[in-house]
């Protein structure tokens, strides 16, 4: 749970998209209106300076900023979000980087009889000691990157990057855009309360956790959800009622 509490430590995100770094040039960001800014999201993004992964936005079908965002002159950090697929690092490598720490946990169950809990703790202590001078590379907060999403009735599954979202609301919006494309304006969808979460749509969002049980999305704190979710399923509400899975699906608050 120490991982969860380190998520809560908020620090400024210093990434300034469109800022001219170190330059007096004041050159305006010439990129087209695809770069998302804080205006597009209801919750400002923040990230830990210690290697926590700021979200990379992967809502497929990137949204336009309402206007060409005017960059600030150097200096003060603004909460801006990442651009899809930038920097250009393969998802294989990305997941590998973020799994550096996470890989240690599941391995305990395997033929890894030699490694016991005590050794794992020692490793973490060592890591903290080593990391005093420079940011410790392994001090990753265990984001799991891309996970699969399937929707009842749709053959082709999709993938969503959980790192890109800091709340259930944002995740549900992204999924609605992915699967339940509507004719309305994109911006509206972001600010509307998600139907997937409040039980009013004919679909409901569920997830498979570490133990292989299927749970309703939304009943545990977001951070806890991130550490246990393995994949998502957008299930027909009718099927949920008839479900004989035998798992206790908790009510959404």
């Amino acid at each position: 749970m120490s991982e969860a509490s380190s998520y809560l430590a908020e620090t400024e995100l210093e990434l300034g998209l469109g800022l001219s770094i170190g330059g007096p040039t004041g050159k305006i960001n010439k990129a087209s209106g695809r770069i998302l800014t804080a205006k597009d999201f209801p919750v400002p993004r923040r990230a830990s300076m210690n290697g926590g992964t700021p979200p990379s936005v992967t809502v497929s079908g990137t949204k336009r900023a309402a206007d060409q965002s005017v960059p600030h002159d150097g200096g003060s950090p603004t909460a801006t979000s990442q651009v899809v697929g930038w920097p250009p690092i393969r998802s294989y490598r990305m997941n590998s980087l973020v799994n550096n720490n996470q890989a240690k946990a599941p391995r305990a169950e395997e033929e890894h009889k030699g490694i016991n809990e005590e050794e794992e703790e020692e490793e973490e202590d060592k890591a903290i000691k080593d990391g005093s001078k420079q940011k410790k590379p392994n001090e990753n907060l265990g984001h799991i990157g891309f996970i699969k999403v399937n929707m009842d009735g749709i053959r082709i599954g999709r993938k969503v990057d959980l790192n890109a979202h800091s709340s259930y609301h944002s995740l549900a919006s992204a999924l609605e855009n992915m699967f339940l494309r509507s004719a309305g304006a994109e911006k509206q969808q972001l600010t509307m309360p998600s139907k997937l979460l409040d039980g009013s749509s004919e679909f409901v969002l569920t997830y498979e956790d570490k133990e292989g049980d299927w749970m309703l999305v939304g009943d545990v704190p977001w951070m806890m959800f991130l550490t246990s979710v393995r994949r998502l399923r957008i299930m027909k509400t009718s099927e949920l009622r008839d479900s004989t899975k035998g798992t206790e699906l908790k009510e959404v608050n």
Partner: protein
Amino acid sequence: MPKRLASSLSDEVLEHVFSFIQSEKDRNVVSAVCKSWYEIERWCRRKIFVGNCYAVSPEMVIRRFPQVRSIELKGKPHFADFNLVPDGWGGYVLPWITEMAGAYPWLDEIRLKRMVVTDESLELIAKSFKDFKVLVLASCEGFSTDGLAAIAASCKNLRELDLRESEVDDSSVHWLSHFPETYTSMVSLNISCLGSGEVSFSALERLVSRCPNLRSLKLNRAVPLDKTANILRLAPQLVEFSACTYSAELRSDVFSNLAGAFSNCKELRSLSGFWDVVPDYLPAIYSVCSRLTSLNLSYATILSPDLIKLVSHCPSLQRLLVLDYIEDSGLEALASNCKDLQELRVFPSDPFDAEPNASLTEQGLVAVSLGCPKLQSVLYFCRRMSNAALVTIAQNRPNLNRFRLCIIEPNTADYLTGEPFDVGFGAIVEHCKDLIRLSLSGLLTDCVFEYIGKYAKKLEMLSVAFAGDSDLGLHHVLSGCESLRKLEIRDCPFGDKALLTNAAKLETMQSLWMSSCSVSFEACKLLSQKMPRLNVEVIDERGPPDSRPENCTVDKLYIYRSVAGPRFDMPPFVWTKDEDLALRLSP
């Protein structure tokens, strides 16, 4: 060719001569000489490379080349690696396997990249090709360990199974155990992408111990150190090895076992893996370091001092992949120790942090360009750069043929002068006359494209992001770069004009990708009408591009030449000029 000359050599002789011509390019030239050479050549072509699986249909390939033994196919566009291509876009291999199963019973090699491979495809391969030898699935997806089990069980002469960077679903089948006890032919096995549940150690050990020809072994992440040592002892003939070196603390018994195992491996030339490596274990590999030509430490979180120690033991290094933990000081050490270095790739350890977490700047790259006379291929992620450094690099290393620079923050200017990097990249293309691949980054105006169009005559692949001012930029590239095959662009203000003016150029290229640019659907339709041998695909998940206002630009655009016509497996979010719904059959 005068008739008498052509008929003076019999078909058999010609065929024998052609058998010495291996390169595809040369074969294509040979087949264009005259009709009879075309005929002879097509019957004896054994190896096919299809850079875009939609550029041609399997039936067409089979019709022209009836006796193929080896095929390589690539599916999705390169930007799919960075999640810019939505799932379900395409790249299905099953139609190819289905056709080839009937036509090429002697097919023994299949190499795929960025394709969707199902268990059904793998089962079909296992069933259909009696002498199957080589299966390479690079960055593929859609299959599980069930499919692998089918391959293992049926392919008695399998020599190579390489799953590099693919996504494999775990179906809980112990697929490795499906290799029969009589199977001994493995030469190259790469399962580094598999999760911990998907490999049984005992099955792996038994497999390794009975395959005396094993030369390349790349294990997955979950193999602990003592198992690693055991496996190495079973295969001291290995040339390439990749393994995790996870351990909690230095244990001298584990260390000496590992060191001993490595010292047995006299043929070892390439090492990779190193996930979770603890620096204390690194000396275990020192005995092989002097012979190493390739080292991939790009998953290893080792810091600069340990990296410096390591590279100083590797004077024969030709290829190094590493994280930015190496820092400028480490690259300087590399430059003084490794005079044979040909390829360098430096990846960011923390790509999303605005602050650099390692002292890696343009200086490191400059040092390597100065110290390593054979350097040809560079991939470099950094947070700051200057035109002066780029000019120096260009002047130091005119023999560069691949130069990919990623300044992490888009639109970053020269940190010394505040200028765009037009002059710096201009120097690169001007001096490096054999440049075939270039990736740009940082603040760039249309000027850089003018330089590229003027100088980069051998350039085959160009990647552009967040650059340029106007259509002129794109026009310079399309009109100037004679050898251009692949162009991929994102977030640039390039639009209809440049595209339509250079429509004919697009047919000379393999493909063009443009996302988040300024191209309208009207222009796409027009282009598609003008150029029937181009497939113009708009990828847009917001709905039919027709339903948007006129000035709305398309989200993503993928244009590629094809002799196979429009494809039939397009998902709902891919739009072409044809309204015909019959084109939307399920794959």
